[in-house]
């Protein structure tokens, strides 16, 4: 079961949001049941994953892997990054691409690691239908691409049966 999906670009903006908790929310994204607008929620989510990413980077230097030098600090480090966190009722998965895009998915807590699924969304859906779209030129806008939206929806549905 997948609850929602956020996509952030490297300028920290949320460029796509989807929610599968309640089917009729699809048309009406701005009103969520817990009275927080999704834009506000997306900012909190970004803050959380950003802080945890830094926290994991700091802590992993304590847990055996040597600290990298300062100039490598901004580079994406897939070897020791933050992957997911879990609470008693949901699990948040995080995947960052080399270009700084951040994919975040919330699912139910029993879900295994979804890194591969997020990578697949990036490779087969984002790159195919957003990057290769000739009309898409600014990476700072919200993705209003029906094909992307539908494909993502289909993909998530097929995954969370």
């Amino acid at each position, binding site marked *: 079961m997948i*609850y*929602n999906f956020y996509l952030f670009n490297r300028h920290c903006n949320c460029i796509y949001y989807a*929610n599968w*908790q309640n089917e009729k929310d699809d048309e009406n994204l701005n009103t969520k049941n817990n009275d*927080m607008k999704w834009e506000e*929620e997306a900012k*909190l*989510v970004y*803050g*959380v994953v950003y*802080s*945890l990413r*830094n*926290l*994991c980077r*700091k*802590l*992993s*230097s*304590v*847990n*055996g*892997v040597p*600290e990298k030098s300062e100039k490598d600090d901004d580079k994406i480090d*897939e*070897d*020791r*990054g*933050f*992957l*997911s*966190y*879990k*609470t*008693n*009722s*949901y699990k*948040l998965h995080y995947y960052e691409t080399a270009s700084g895009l951040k994919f975040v998915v*919330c699912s139910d807590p029993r879900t295994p*690691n979804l890194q591969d699924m997020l990578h697949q969304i990036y490779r087969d859906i984002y790159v195919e239908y957003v990057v290769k779209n000739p009309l898409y030129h600014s990476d700072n806008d919200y993705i209003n691409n029906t094909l992307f939206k539908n494909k993502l929806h289909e993909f998530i549905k097929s995954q969370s049966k």
Partner: protein
Amino acid sequence: MTISSLMIINKAGGLIYQKGFSSTPSKLDSNEYLVLAGTFHGVHTISTRIAPVPSSGIEVIEASTFKLHCFQTQTGTKFIMTTDPEQTRVELYLKKVYEIYSDYVMKNPFYTPEMPIRCELFDVNVLRYIKSINESS
């Protein structure tokens, strides 16, 4: 399978105890640990706000090289352990550490609640307990 460190955060987000158990010396200084504890405390609270369904705070964080487990007591004190990714049954260990904390910190008449823990008996007993786990696995 090893437990590499233990942290205790009070209900206000202040770090009151930190101990590393791995043989390699820690590269972070005490200020950095204070910042990390504060960050974790904040993120723990926000994680209940952004929950798609009503939820408690963070229980486990998975990173590629380690796992971080958090146990929050009824009074808001958080016990945090970092372990390697394969370590199991950490919830149990955290509860046991909470027991040791109750016995040797809370029952210590010279301890001021919410302040940094400087109790020799707690140190000794925690160290003994963690060592026994690390050696048995």
